[in-house]
């Protein structure tokens, strides 16, 4: 825009600017799909019957939104600095969560460790099982049919699309979370982080590194 814009004779009146005669853009949040209508109907029925209150629902949503990958990063960083804790985490993930001051979680936690020979990646081909108490809500791609069907069949190609190239001499282990376990990848501690505190290390542990589609951030 030039300084002499208002001197231009282009018929752009202020009356037009304030009138907004163009059609309003439709809101994207008012699409009442079949399942959305079902959810609202069921929720209102349960509230009417006194099974729970609207505030209970709101609290649950708030609780769910409060969880995020920082919880998972905490246990990973702790395992990086404390060999005894690492052993516990690999042996009994739920107990290790409690020791770290977190929820045990509603499911058994299986932690799979990346080593110089082995790289792990998690999927739930049947739905979207995910350790929500440690990572929060799963990303949309984790729930997509493309990720779920492809990562079991061509994991190296999918990882490459995430920017993660696994050398030929490293075995790729896919874990399909089909039933009552939930999974977390314990990535390898990045080189060049000697002497770092747990908090500082936790800052390198991304959500995607704990799902196994990426490596931790570099220091």
């Amino acid at each position, binding site marked *: 825009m030039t300084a002499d814009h208002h001197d231009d004779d282009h018929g752009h009146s202020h009356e037009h600017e304030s009138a907004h005669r163009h059609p309003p853009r439709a809101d994207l949040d008012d699409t009442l799909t079949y399942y959305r209508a079902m959810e609202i109907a069921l929720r209102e029925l349960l509230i009417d019957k006194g099974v729970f209150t609207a505030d209970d629902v709101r609290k649950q949503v708030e609780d769910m939104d409060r969880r995020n990958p920082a919880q998972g990063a905490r246990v990973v960083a702790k395992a990086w600095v404390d060999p005894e804790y690492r052993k516990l985490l690999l042996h009994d993930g739920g107990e290790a969560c409690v020791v770290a001051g977190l929820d045990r979680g509603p499911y*058994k936690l*299986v932690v799979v460790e990346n080593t110089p020979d082995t790289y792990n990646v998690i999927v739930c*081909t*049947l739905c979207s099982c995910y350790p929500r108490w440690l990572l929060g809500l799963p990303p949309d791609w984790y729930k997509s049919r493309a990720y779920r069907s492809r990562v*079991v*069949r*061509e*994991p*190296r*190609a999918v990882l490459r699309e995430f920017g993660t190239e696994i050398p*030929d001499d490293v*075995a*790729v*282990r*896919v*874990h*399909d*979370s*089909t*039933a*009552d*376990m939930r999974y977390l990848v314990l990535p390898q501690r990045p080189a060049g982080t000697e002497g770092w505190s747990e908090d500082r290390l936790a800052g390198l542990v991304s959500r995607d590194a704990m799902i196994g589609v990426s490596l931790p951030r570099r220091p």
Partner: protein
Amino acid sequence: MARAEAVEPRFQPGDRVAVRIAYPPGHVRTPYYVRGKAGVVERLCGVYGNPEELAYARPGLPRQPLYRVRFRQGDVWPDYGGRAGDTIDIEIFQHWLEPSP
């Protein structure tokens, strides 16, 4: 829980097992892509309610041992394009497994 309400585990880590080839209707948590494939028991995860029953609001009894079974990718996908050492671990309930030579 009474003993009769849970099935005793019949496999141990290291046992070779094959997934039954079956296509029952309803809610099943054994992926199609692994039916008929052979692998090795990685661990016993515990004993859990049968999801094929729980899905219909039934009690899920008897509870079934749940294993993690490790398959070689080359055994699951004949045209697998990765490396020979690549594997996939899947949770499978005991009633879907049989011993494999």
